[in-house]
């Protein structure tokens, strides 16, 4: 039953993301330690309740269809992204020979979902967020594809199931240490988080989500969390051996690695600063992309060895 397992993994991890998010914020803000854990556990549910009773916001002449569809598309993409990840040897919801390319399609369509979310509102700050995110999202996606192709080399396959199986003896993070670091940047970008949040950031008063409230905003936040979960599952499978572990391979190892990566990314999102967009673009094109080339070349040499 890969369907059921994937759904349980998604639901549980989304709640974990929400809790660890408010806990990390409270810890970094040095809130008094009284009721810290209880507040963090309750905060996501409070946010859900508040969103549900708030009225929907309206702007002048929005593109209603795309505005309503963008959060649904984002959430669906997170679901497809998680569905390509195997829970156990040969057990994945989508087990096709080209699931890495499918993950690439998920990345590109995510850029489009975020862009449409900001563009459709027909309001200045969401629009700036949309264009800014498209400019950042494309180069980050490009370098992530170079890094992912590096993980497909030792497996000699474009299937995520085979990529995990190829790490039986040694994980890809040891074969190509640069790859995991570069790939983690994509996770921050895909889930609009911290230093790579050029879409929904505070400097644009919420950016693409700035004019959204009520249930639509709740769906959008849920989709962001779900995308972080899907990304953590993909990163664990591509670089950390996925369901493989020292004893008894199974979904528990995948879940454990996902929780570690989610904690790492949420912490990074709260503690790292965001560069100005123009400088970030320069860094992306002239530093990080050449590093991805280097990673691919190194992965190729190791695979031939």
């Amino acid at each position, binding site marked *: 039953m890969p369907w059921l397992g994937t759904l349980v993994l998604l639901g549980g991890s989304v709640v974990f993301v929400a809790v660890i998010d408010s806990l990390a914020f409270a810890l970094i803000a040095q809130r008094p330690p009284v009721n810290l854990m209880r507040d963090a556990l309750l905060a996501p549910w409070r946010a859900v309740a508040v969103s549900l009773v708030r009225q929907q916001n309206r702007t002048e002449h929005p*593109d209603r269809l*795309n505005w309503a569809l963008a959060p649904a598309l984002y959430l669906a993409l997170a679901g497809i992204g998680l569905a390509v990840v195997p829970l156990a040897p040969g057990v994945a919801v989508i087990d*096709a*020979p*080209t699931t890495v*390319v*499918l993950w*690439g*399609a998920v990345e*590109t*369509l995510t*850029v*489009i979902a975020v*862009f*449409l979310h900001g*563009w459709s509102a*027909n309001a200045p700050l969401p*629009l700036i967020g949309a*264009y800014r995110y*498209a*400019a950042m999202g*494309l180069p980050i*996606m490009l370098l992530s594809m170079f890094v992912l192709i590096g993980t497909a080399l030792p497996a000699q396959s*474009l299937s995520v199931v085979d990529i995990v199986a190829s790490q039986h003896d040694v994980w890809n993070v040891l074969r190509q240490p640069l790859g995991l670091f570069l790939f983690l940047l994509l996770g921050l970008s895909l889930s609009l988080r911290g230093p790579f949040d050029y879409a929904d950031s505070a400097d644009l008063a919420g950016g693409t989500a700035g004019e959204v409230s009520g249930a639509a905003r709740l769906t959008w936040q849920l989709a962001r969390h779900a995308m972080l979960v899907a990304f953590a599952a993909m990163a664990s499978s591509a670089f950390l051996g996925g369901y493989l572990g020292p004893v008894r391979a199974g979904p528990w190892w995948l879940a454990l690695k996902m929780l570690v990566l989610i904690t790492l990314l949420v912490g990074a999102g709260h503690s790292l600063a965001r560069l100005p967009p*123009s400088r970030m673009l320069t860094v992306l*094109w*002239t530093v990080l*992309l*050449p590093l991805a*080339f280097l990673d*691919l070349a190194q992965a190729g040499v190791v695979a031939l060895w």
Partner: protein
Amino acid sequence: MVSGTDLAFWTLAAIAIVSGWRVFRTDSMVRSAFLLLLSFIAVGLIMLLLRAPYLGVATIFMMGVEMMVMALFMVMFMMNPAGLNPMNMVHQERFAIVAGVLAFAGLAAAVWLTDLPHHPLVAGRPVIRELGMELLGRSMLIFETAGVTLLATMIGTVVLSSRSGRFGPADAGSLPPTMTPGGMPAGRIPKKRSGGHGGHGGHAPSAASPTAGEPAHGHANDHPHQPPEHHA
């Protein structure tokens, strides 16, 4: 008897055709680009039905990037702020109708007259491997190397030609066009010397006199008959 695959094919074919038609009937560049993407996604899914797993998914992946970039470029080059103003997506209508009818007739004739193969795919056949060998064969390494080199070249070109490149402002010495025949260059004319520190991409170079060849670093104040500052 209609199988699930048939049903999926006809639904996807209808989506591809209807969204392809809406590309030209919508009034926005951004919507038109993403409607075209929807059409391509339906075609990609039909390829999956035809058991072409790589070509189908790669079509969706590549068209996603392509349509996003196309929407950005259309908005950048058209005089339509942020792509939000309604605009007509059709031009040269008579020529387009003739070309469209001819192309449709030609392609339909090709489909009718071709003897299409009827071999069902043997299960477990390594189609992706065979496709790669068919496309690239022994030139695989050369092709991959050339791909990465071309991308590096493109990035290098953009870096060298962007205004704040390491060889100074790229538009040094160039003048914006005039608004009236023989008039002054359009745009804001800076009072003090501009340039030196890049980053102000919107500034016109100092262009007090229309005699070309004036470098961007020239002192606008040196010219006795400096025109009043005006905005384009």
